[in-house]
Every structure is written in C-alpha cells, then in structure tokens.
C-alpha cells in the first residue's frame, strides 16, 4: 500500500488578464504518493465541480514531460522543487504529509495570465518566427548522407534541441529573461552544417526579437536550475559570442565596412 498525504493548497485564481487575482485555499485528503501533481489538481477540480464551483484552469497535455504545455510555480519554484522535472512528472511522493503547497502561474510580463494558472507564452513563437528555422522548402533537400554532421556537433546540437519550450527558464529568472530558451533554439541550428548559411542573420533576428519581449540576462543561472531538460548555460555564452560576431558579419555581408 502506498503512502497517502493530506495537503493544503493555496492556488492562484484569476478570472482573466484584467482581474487582479487572489489565492484560494483548498484541502486535499488521502492523496496517493503515486499520483502526479496534475492528477492532484484533477481531484481538486472534481471536488469543485461536485460542489458547483468553477474548476481551476491549468495548461497540460501530454503528461509525459515532452509537450511543454504544463507550467506552474510550486512553492515559488518553476515546475516545483524536483530537479529536471516538469510539473506533470512531479509525483506526490516528493511531498510530505501535512505540507502546504502554494501554486501560482508562471510570472513574467511577456507571459500574461489568460486565466487562473494559464499564461500566454506565444512570445516564444515570435522568437522562432524571427529565425529559428533553416530555410529549406519541401522537396529542396539533397540526400541526407551528403551532409555528414560530426557526431560531437550532432550530440551538442541535440542537447540544445531537447528544449520543450515550457518557459520555466523565464519564470525562474529574476529578470524574466529568455536567454536560455533562445540560446537553446539558436544553438540547435547554429552548431550544425545545415544551419550555417543563415547563422548570423538568425542570431541577430532572434536575439533582438527576444529583447523586445523579455528582460536582460544577469547570469543568475536560475534558468538552468529550473529547466526540466537541464539545458546548459554554455548555450547562452555561445549565443552571446555568435551575437557579437553577427553584428560584425551581417554588416560585412550587407556590404557595409
């Protein structure tokens, strides 16, 4: 028989972007330790519906830690206190009987609250649209093995590409900066041969789009600590180097001395 927990939850409720929002307190009893954090919220919602109250809205989908939909600040930490874990993969065995748990949405000016715990992260899509791709139209590709990719480059590129776009890095950052997300997306493409033609244009455009939404990086490293995929801070350094190079090279490419 697995352990059962009795918990007190303080959950942020907010009707919409214009509402000022407030905390509500809920009791959760006999919670199985095998349950995930989102299943705990499911149970609270079932109770709310049973009592004719409006359930808590929260983003979630795959519940396998890969889609990047789920979010939440749990006791002030993005995706909770467990290392390298999304909220959907945070199991209740990580909590103790009698705990009080504070649940809030990701907080950042670039992530406005839609309702309750749901925030709008579409600013991330704007960063990708600014250059987070390789321009190869369908059908234009040559045989895949014509372009060898050194294994080390492929592996490091993959480490960056593992980013799930959840936004925990922004939520954890005291400046609400998006350097970890942006640098991961950039490094994924800038590290491999296929990405070289657009490397510096991509870098300048993505970084500057990022800056139009998000705060500045002051090297706290909280983003890496919160990242469920443990994206390395090295990518931020890589992005900064590429950005400096881009400012020079893009002007040379444009014929300016």
């Amino acid at each position, binding site marked *: 028989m*697995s352990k059962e927990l009795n918990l007190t939850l303080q959950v942020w409720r907010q*009707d919409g972007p214009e509402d000022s929002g407030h905390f509500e307190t809920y009791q959760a009893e006999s919670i*199985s330790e095998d349950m995930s954090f989102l*299943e705990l919220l*499911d*149970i609270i*919602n*079932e109770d*709310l*519906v*049973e009592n*004719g109250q*409006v*359930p808590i809205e929260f*983003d*979630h*989908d*795959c*519940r*396998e830690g*890969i*889609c*990047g*939909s789920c979010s939440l600040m749990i006791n002030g930490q993005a995706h909770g206190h467990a290392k390298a874990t999304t909220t959907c*993969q945070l*199991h209740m065995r990580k909590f103790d009987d009698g705990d009080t748990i504070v649940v809030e949405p990701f907080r950042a000016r670039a992530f406005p609250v*839609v*309702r309750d715990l*749901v925030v*709008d*992260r*579409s600013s991330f*899509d704007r960063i990708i*649209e600014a250059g*987070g*791709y*390789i*321009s*190869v139209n*369908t*059908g234009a*590709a*040559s045989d*895949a*093995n014509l*372009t*060898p990719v*050194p*294994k080390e480059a*492929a592996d490091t*590129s*993959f480490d960056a*590409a*593992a980013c*799930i*776009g959840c936004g925990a890095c922004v939520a954890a950052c005291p400046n609400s900066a998006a350097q970890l997300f942006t640098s991961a997306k950039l490094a*994924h493409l800038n590290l*491999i041969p*296929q*990405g070289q033609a657009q490397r510096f244009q991509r870098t300048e455009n993505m970084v500057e789009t990022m800056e139009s939404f998000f705060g500045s990086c002051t090297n706290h490293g909280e983003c890496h600590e919160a990242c469920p995929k443990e994206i390395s801070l090295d990518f931020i350094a890589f992005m900064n180097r590429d950005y400096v190079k881009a400012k020079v090279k893009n002007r040379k490419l444009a014929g300016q001395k």
Partner: protein
Amino acid sequence: MTVLDSKIPEGPIADKWENHKFSMKLVNPNNKRRFEIIVVGTGLAGASAAASLSELGYRVKVFTFHDSPRRAHSIAAQGGINGAKNYTNDGDSVHRLFYDTVKGGDYRSREANVHRLAEVSVNIIDQAAAQGVPFAREYGGLLDNRSFGGAQVSRTFYARGQTGQQLLLGAYQALAKQVATGAVELHTRTELLDVVLKDGRACGIVTRDLVSGEISSHSGHAVVLATGGYGNVYYLSTNAMACNVTAAWRAHRKGAFFANPCYTQIHPTCIPASDEFQSKLTLMSESLRNDGRIWVPDAFDDGRTPDQIPEAERDYYLERKYPAFGNLVPRDVASRNAKTVVDQGKGVGTLKNGVYLDFAAAIERDGEDVVRAKYGNLFDMYANITGENPYQVPMRIYPAIHYTMGGVWVDYNLMTTIPGCYSIGEANFSDHGANRLGASALMQGLADGYFVLPYTIGDDLAGRLGETVVPTDDPVFVEAEAAVQGQVDQFMSIGGTRSVDWFHRELGKIVWDYIGMERTKEGLEKALSEIPALEEEFWKDLRLPGSTATLNSSLEKAGRVADFFELAKLMARDALDREESCGGHFRAEHQTEEGEAQRDDDNFAHVAAWEWNGADSVQTRHEEELVFENVALTQRSYK
C-alpha cells in the same frame, strides 16, 4: 456495388504514384495565391502540410487548439521513423518497406497507398535532415539506423528517444518560417466545431476561440483535417489529454465516411496503471524491445522479486513462441501475448498487471553506458514515474491503447467523401490497415503533409480557378454557427450532478472492456446496450460550471466526450460486423488453434466505411474491396 471510388491509378504498383503525379492537373505558380486552404491541426501532418502548401504559394489558414503549434501529440513519439534508404546495406528497399507494411497491417490496407508511402519515406529523411533534425549519427557523421518491431532490417532513423519531438519541431519551424512571411495565418487556442458545406462541397469551418468563447466562421477553397486519432475514447491511453475525435466526427456527421473504427492499436510497452486516479498511461518506446527481454515467472502468483527468480524458472514467452522475431514481433502479437500471461495469473508487480522487460543481458553484453546512450531518457522517465531503477530491476510493462488505424475514409488523393475536404495523418484510415508497424506513424504523417497532399490538392483546385470562397455571412455559415452555439448552450443548461471527466472515465471502462484487446460478440452487444444508456445519462446529468465566455476546459471536454459516445457505438458495430480477426481487431471467436488472429479473406478483405444517417439512425456500412496484386495474402507468421 460500392459508392466508394478509391481513385487508385492504373499501372504497375511501382509506377502508380509516378504516373499519377504526371497525370494530375497543376495550378500555375502565379495562380496558387488565389486559393485559400484551411488546415486544422498542427501535428506532424498538419504542420508539414501547412508549411508545404504555403511554400507552393497557396494562402493557408492553420488552426490549433493548443497555445502553440509545437505542442501536438506527435511530439511524444519516441522511437523513430522508417525510411527505405538502405544505408545499412542489409537488403532494404522501397519494395521491402511496402511489403513489410502491408503484411504488418494484416492485409487490410491499400497496396497503392502503402507503396507510395514507402516511396516518399526516403524524401522525408532528406527533408528532416536538411531542416536540422538532430538524428543520431555514426562517428563518421553519417546517419545511424536501428531495427524496429515487424522488420528484419535496420531502417529506423531516430533522435535519441525523442524522434517525434525533433520531427515536429522541424515541421513547426518550417511553419514558423511561413507564418513570419505572412503566408500562413495562424490561429492558436481555436477549436474546430463544425465543417461547413455548400452545394455538397466543403467551403469552410466553424470554430470556437477557447479564450474568449467567440464562435466564428472561416472559409476556404479546401479544408484539410489533420486532427489525429481517437484513442482517448478509452479514457486511459497513451494519447495526450486533449486528443479527441471531434473534428473527424463533425466531418463524419456532415458526410465524410468513417472507416474501420474497430482498428485500434494497443501498444505493448507501457507502464502499468498504479491506481484508479491515473489520468493517462505512459508509453515506453517499442525500441526498448531491441535490447530488453520480455519474461514472466513460470509459476503462477510468484511472489518473489525478479532477482530471486533463477533463469530456469522464467518464461521468455516471445522468444520461445516466435524464435525468428523473438521480442520484436509486431505490436498486436506482443500485446495479446502479454494479456494471455497476465490473465493466466503470471503477472508481475503489486497489482499483478504487468510483465518484465529486462535489460540485464544487454547491460552485461554492451555495458551500462551503451544502454544509457540508447535509452537514457526512457529509463529516467520510468524511474521517475515508478520510483524503481530499471538499470537494476527489470521494468514492468503492460499494453495500452496507443494509436488508431481507423479514421476518416479518404481516396488515393486523401480526399474524404466530402468533396474539397481532406484528411491526413492519423486522422485518416489510409495506410496502416488493421495494424500499424512501429516507426510508421511519423512516416505517414509527414508523407501526407510534405509529399502527398501538396501534389494531390492541386489536381482538384486546378479546375476551380476563379471560384471565390463562400462569404462567412452566407446562410450555410450562419446556420452552422447557430448549431454550434446551440450545443454549447445545451451543455451549459443541463445542470446535472456529474463532471464530464466522470462520464469520460465510465465510457472508457466500457470501451476498454468490450472493444479493447480482445472482442467477443457477446461483449460487443453488451457495449451496444451500455454505451447508449450512459450517453443518455450524460445528456441528463452533466454538470458544467463556469462561463462560455472564458477559458472553460470542462466545456471543451463536454463536446469531445459527446462525440466519443457516438464514436464508441460505431466502433462496437464495426467490430461486431467484422466477423474475423485481423491486426488490432481480435475477435475471440476467430482464432487459430495456436491462438493467433484468424483472418477471413474471402469475406472481409475490404474496408468498412460508415455513412452517417442522422443522429437517430444507425450508419450505413459500405465496402471498399481490397485487391492484392503484389503481396500474397498469407497467414501472418512471425515464428
């Protein structure tokens, strides 16, 4: 006499697609911008189609109920994608991939579609690699391959255990590139609630903005449904929570035939449920079967821990029964065998609801580092969910519903029986027959989106140059919007006592028990009496708190569950009428002496496609004969 015209081109199998491409009409590059195409769904199929159509010059409007096009459940596919590249020099070819897929589908798919799929599989790998998808590489920098269930060659390309994620990001980035140029209009958090027809042809859709609740219409020259499968009819599945049948079902109600709904796939390697509050089941990639050995104790109700059970007292039942394929038999065979041993009382774990998947031999042979490099993230995921360390203790696995081969009927051009309405990816029924092989879902979604639909859609549009789209204030849109609004209001006014999740869970239990891994006449008849009773209860006793003018996920789910009820009935009917066993459809009455699926090719070598006759009548069953000219129908054997 069938009303279904599959439009399969004439000629030898290897020339059909090539000839068809030449014979199809083209839309001049400058005229493409005069056509508007609606794409619903942004998984692999939808995102790749939207990007490719837009690159060709069509004006594209794309819709997703997610907050971003990067979230669709394609992202969770772990294992890999097949491509007939033969980079490994082990005898693969387009014809072999075609053959394996037809055979794997238990001879219930269209030869012509499958051959086309195998042909374009090589282009998909090229396209994805060029987009920067970080496939696994050898030290020389070239692409690595591995083998997968149902195949004896290594043709599966993979990106650690996150192949679906990386391919979807590739398609999403291609789409983002087009959104940035203004060529694609992107609508997020917007759900399709109806397909609209004018004079018998699809002219647009009605959607609900999930944030504001606003119901609106969008018109186009063609509508493409790339909205995934219906596995969540079982409630517990490996699908994401929001996966649903609604877009496909609403199209069905407007005239799109729904084909082979009883073909559902149970995935053999999932983590067994731990309690009844579980909201979903987690899949472990089938690629684990490459190195893991599946076994149960010989003894019934063996209470010992796995390390206490000596080799001689273990039953490696797949290796014993199927020496040639061993642990790599196709999914349906692996799943049913797991059910058999668990039903016999040899199940493992506290709830006795699993079998072991053991990596001890692989770790001893290759070392823990090699195993970690191949499957590290899967092992971590397992450890996190179960609290057990799979490097030391064998994993426990059990089958769960994973994929649905049935779906909207489409012809060779991927057009549904509604002219102008297409269906691609898992949403259609086309390529997998009665059973899908591993690493083929990603292949089919991207084949449809990148390399099939962009060709076939032009053939129909070319003749429509100069036709303007139906304005959204046309009575057909006004009526459809009113009907959608009517259903929303109806849900809100029931004022019952039960949550939508409660109804979904109860429905899921019926579907799993009677239309799951093993079906019987008696069980299916029971399902057909229990589902309508629960459905009636749903419409009387549903409670939906909240407002229609804000984000209200209970309201979203209510519409999806209402459609699942209707689908579940059709699944039962389809399963009842198909008096044979094939692939994922196993009728206990039809099995060989050895307990294998017994097909009836004389009477059932056809697609069953169902026509909607209104909410109060049963659908009409139509048949599309399947002709096998290139692959001989044999009893599938993996021994």
